[in-house]
């Protein structure tokens, strides 16, 4: 059950993760390990988390994402969260959730653009 529904694909030197609509805690935790392993394996310099299908983003999910971004950064990669839904963004804001050092992008295309830009053009959430 753990990581069967979360696909991780390598696109050049970026890892692309497509999150399903309502992943359970175990899948989210398993994903973190899988991503880090693949980052090492492929020497990826970036990670894109496509959450356009995600309907609920609670504190557990947010914390795991923030942790993953931090871990990825330690391994030399930047993280971009792509495609957050308006209703999810509003709820997350009201909840006071942060995404750590992860950047955000409107969609996967922009996310990839952000990661291939020389400068730090993306919207970082780090203070």
């Amino acid at each position: 059950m753990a990581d069967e529904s979360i696909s991780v694909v390598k696109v050049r030197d970026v890892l692309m993760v497509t999150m399903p609509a309502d992943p359970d805690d175990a899948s989210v935790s398993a994903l973190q390990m899988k991503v880090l392993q693949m980052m090492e394996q492929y020497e990826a310099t970036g990670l894109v988390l496509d959450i356009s299908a995600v309907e609920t983003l609670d504190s557990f999910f947010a914390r795991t994402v923030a942790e993953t971004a931090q871990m990825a950064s330690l391994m030399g990669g930047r993280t971009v969260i792509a495609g957050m839904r308006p209703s999810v963004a509003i709820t997350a804001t009201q909840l006071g959730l942060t995404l750590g050092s992860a950047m955000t992008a409107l969609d996967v295309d922009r996310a990839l653009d952000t990661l291939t830009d020389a400068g730090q053009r993306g919207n970082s959430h780090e203070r």
Partner: protein
Amino acid sequence: MEHPDGQDRQAEVTVLEWEQRKDFVGFTDDDALLLRDLCSLSEAYADEVVEELYRQFLRFDETKAFFPDDATLNRVKALQKEYFLGLTGGDYGQEYLANRLHVGRVHQRIGLSPRWYIGAYSIYMQAVIPRLIGAFGSDPKKAQRTIVALLKIIELDQELAITTYIAASEAVIARQSREILEISTPVVQVWEGVIAAPLIGMLDTERAQQFMERLLTRVVETRSSVALVDITGVPMVDSRTAQHLLEAIAAVRLLGAQLVLTGVRPTIAQTLVHLGIDLEGVVTRASLEAGLRFAMESMHLQDGSRNGRQ
């Protein structure tokens, strides 16, 4: 029961509340029995009473207007007769309630105000009471109890009529308010990748919520990188408003876009600082124009560096 707009179809009065109302006026099963005993009598005088009522309706321009032709008049008279017979039907439960609620909604929809159909109840009683007293001639006590029972059920009916009328009117007002809100806080695309939303007036929680939802939706729809929110038209910013603005800024950032606050006048700037609002990382500009310039510069830079890569 279909409401024409298909909205707000929840019962204005629940079955539980209906029971409570009956309890309050003291409408008991005895009353129900007394009224059912009236059944045959009311069937006998129903036509006459309806005629008297509509004679009155046709005397006044305001009510006459609802019956433009004979076909309408006859149809309504038939419905009215059914309604009056319902008063003495003997059953005053859920179905009765649903039926009466429907009547109220219909009246609101056609624009017949309570003033007229409450008045109709009065005419009904004036027509019915003498007939009742006549029928129960030998038993004045029973006549009295029956009249009181009739008064109770009519009073309950009037309450329902008013409740549904008010509820239906409020639904219309709510819908119109929503539409006004949408018109008064438009979100327009001013350039490729840039949307602008002028905020006018005070921002209460409800308005802020609506605004945020529309703003974010438009950001996604237009695939914009910058959302210019102009607060020139916001006379005053209190900590609540500032909080709403900060939330909007954070939410837009989560989408991957940037909210630029424009039209920050000196007094507002002072207030924000005095309130201790942390605007770290928030881009602000004094005018919408300046905000647009910033937006285009930042997008141009983005494109520039990207093109440079190719």
